[in-house]
């Protein structure tokens, strides 16, 4: 049973525009959320995280928003760049437990 869901398998955005990647979760015990970025044939790399005591965390062009009541989080990339083209995985965890990953969203940023 998929506890972390990324319902959009792919997203295409023009360079300079905003990319919004969405993620929903079902387990109310999840209190730590992360986004990973993955290029083909490489391991995922950590991008940004947020704990359940916050509703927003920002790091440069990347911002993660958390809506606990809706069990929804999103990753905003502004402005999008061609180098951002990759698969983005949403992950969630109950305190210090193993991460549960979504299926990923493939982002393509076109020039």
């Amino acid at each position, binding site marked *: 049973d998929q506890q972390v869901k990324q319902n959009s398998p792919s997203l295409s955005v023009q360079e300079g525009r905003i990319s919004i990647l969405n993620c929903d979760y079902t387990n109310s015990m999840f209190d730590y959320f992360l986004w990973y970025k993955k290029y083909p*044939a490489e*391991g*995922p790399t950590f991008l940004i*995280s947020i704990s359940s005591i916050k509703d927003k965390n920002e790091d440069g062009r990347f911002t993660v928003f958390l809506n606990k009541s809706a069990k929804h989080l999103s990753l905003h990339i502004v402005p999008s760049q061609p180098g951002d083209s990759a698969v983005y995985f949403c992950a969630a965890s109950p*305190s210090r437990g193993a991460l549960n990953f979504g*299926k990923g969203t493939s982002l393509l940023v076109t020039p």
Partner: protein
Amino acid sequence: SQTIHQWPATLVQPVGSPLSLECTVEGTSNPNLYWYRQAAGRGLQLLFYSVGIGQISSEVPQNLSASRPQDRQFILSSKKLLLSDSGFYLCAGSMGFDGYTFGSGTRLTVV
């Protein structure tokens, strides 16, 4: 900082043959270690995790097994590979809980 080493990068094995994938950790002691598989359309699936030497938890019943003979060594094995074992295998490690560091992955093709 923690570094995860995985090898080989690619592997082609016949059905029924054994498998041994090795993961080693550098830079930390007593990490939690994980094996994930990324199969087409299924995101990152947790296979095994280990909190210490000789301690293995299995998340998904399957044709695979894992062992942790040393603190910084995590091995994924199979006695007889199936076609369905094909996929991209990732080793990950965590210290406390700051998310994971992933290895570069092994692309396994069972033919």
